């Protein structure tokens, strides 16, 4: 059962297309934290951000067979959140501060013409925020980026003990198991 948290994003996407709920759960577990923190910094309204993410994830599950996530899951997720945030800005009735920022930007900066480069930048910006997440979330994210690191290597990277790493991995597996209840029922009698 362990293999989900060692799967690459690419494998998760392909399992998701086959209707694998655990793969979906793992994507959620991996990305919810970064997506929330990224969205909240642009739109500091917790309920609104939660709604955006809820809609995004349910949309991914419902359209799992048809959506084109491509080979870059984070880029898909981050641009989806970006578009949803811009959509909310569009509906803001009162004069909001984003326009001031935009005006300022438009007068002082040259846009980045190359789309792939903009996406690369977006990924870098979102993932720079990972370091601020709670340790467990950060751990899960870092592990997904470094699938085959040993516990010791992860521990060194995050500057925590390897016992903590093991404990946290066990904990998150346990939580997952409880959540999935009967479907995930594991025995080693």
């Amino acid at each position, binding site marked *: 059962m362990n293999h989900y948290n060692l799967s690459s994003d690419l494998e998760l996407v392909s399992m998701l297309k086959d209707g694998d709920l655990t793969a979906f759960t793992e994507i959620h577990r991996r990305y*919810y934290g970064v997506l929330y923190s990224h969205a909240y910094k642009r739109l500091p309204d917790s309920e609104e951000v939660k709604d955006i993410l809820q809609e995004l994830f349910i949309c991914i599950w419902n359209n799992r067979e048809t959506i084109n996530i491509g080979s870059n899951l984070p880029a898909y997720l981050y641009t989806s959140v970006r578009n949803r945030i811009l959509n909310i800005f569009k509906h803001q009735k009162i004069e909001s501060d984003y326009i001031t920022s935009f005006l300022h930007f438009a007068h002082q900066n040259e846009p980045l*013409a190359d789309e792939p480069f903009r996406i690369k930048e977006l990924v870098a910006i979102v993932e720079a925020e990972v370091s601020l997440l709670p340790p467990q979330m950060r751990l899960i994210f870092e592990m997904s980026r470094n699938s085959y690191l040993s516990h010791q290597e992860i521990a060194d990277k995050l500057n925590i003990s390897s016992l903590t790493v093991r404990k946290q991995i066990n904990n998150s597996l346990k939580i997952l198991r409880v959540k999935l209840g009967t479907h995930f029922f594991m025995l080693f009698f």
Partner: protein
Amino acid sequence: MDREYLKDLVERYDSGHVTEDEKALVESWYLKYTHPEAEVPYNELESFQDESLNKLLHQIERRHKTPLWPRLAIAASVLIMLSVGIYFLKRDKLSQAPIEVSKINKPFIAPGSNKATITLADGSTIVLNGGKTGQLAKQGKVIINKTSDGQITYVGSKANAPVQQTTYNVATTPRGGQFQFILSDGTKVWLNAASSIKYPVEFTGSERRIELTGEAYFEVAHNAKKPFRVVSNGQLVEVLGTHFNINAYADENEVKTTLLEGSVKIVTGGANFLLKPGQQSQLKNGELNITTADIEEATAWKDGLFHFNDANIEGVMKQLSRWYDVNIRYEGQLKERKFSGEISRNVNATQILDVLTFKKIHYRIDGKTIVIMP
């Protein structure tokens, strides 16, 4: 470029009616934009994530009544085909034998659920199971509420009513029931099946004393001035604020206290002992024994799991009997076997019993009794 143009641009971006240059402008600005006053609530992120996943799984399960686990379903159907195959292979030999009715129409024993009863000071009772939320009762200054997620909370009203005599409530779970309470001091109590706690509606004195039978997990709200004391089956546990589990079922031959966080003092007839986190005390025939705890084993029930670690069949069946509200009877000579493993408490009893058959332990269901045989 003015405000109006940029506003219009954001609107057009959303609908897709923008030139490549305009798209580049919006997206490049977005890369630089953060709200000046945003303070991400990092310490709540994990609970937001849990909440989100719960909602998603709930929504998904409701929509799909079909198996969510294609692989598992395939594995299961392969197994079924195999067994059907074996059945047909063996059928010729079996055709003479009478059909075992119990195997065909196997009763299904559903798992327990959230249910409990509260007996108020005046002897009246409130039955708790699903249904109504909001204020259930008011006693003196304290209001008993049921929250939408099914917890019972005791909330002291701010009104300056005169201090009354201490009134007690008793919360009881039946076999096949569990419940979660928040007492008036903020202490959280998870009550396992076939258990009860007696507690004052309001902790007015110099201590917070409650009585327990059966099993409960406590997250005691810290209050150094008022120690929290749990009296159960021959021992008293004294704490200031901490997380621990007490298993004091009358049909277990020992009272087990497991400490997760903080410190607790175990007081028995003769001795006192200060438990450290990760330790478990066992009180048996008046003697207190301290060991390193298997925390998961002690608290799995609260997380919706059975967890066994080298348990014997009686130990396993005692837990099943409380959760599935069944009696257990043993027939024949059973071999001594040990069981280790973890399984959800959401499954039907027969699903667990079927697993035991791999260990050469068989069963028969006789009304509300499970008969265990070799």
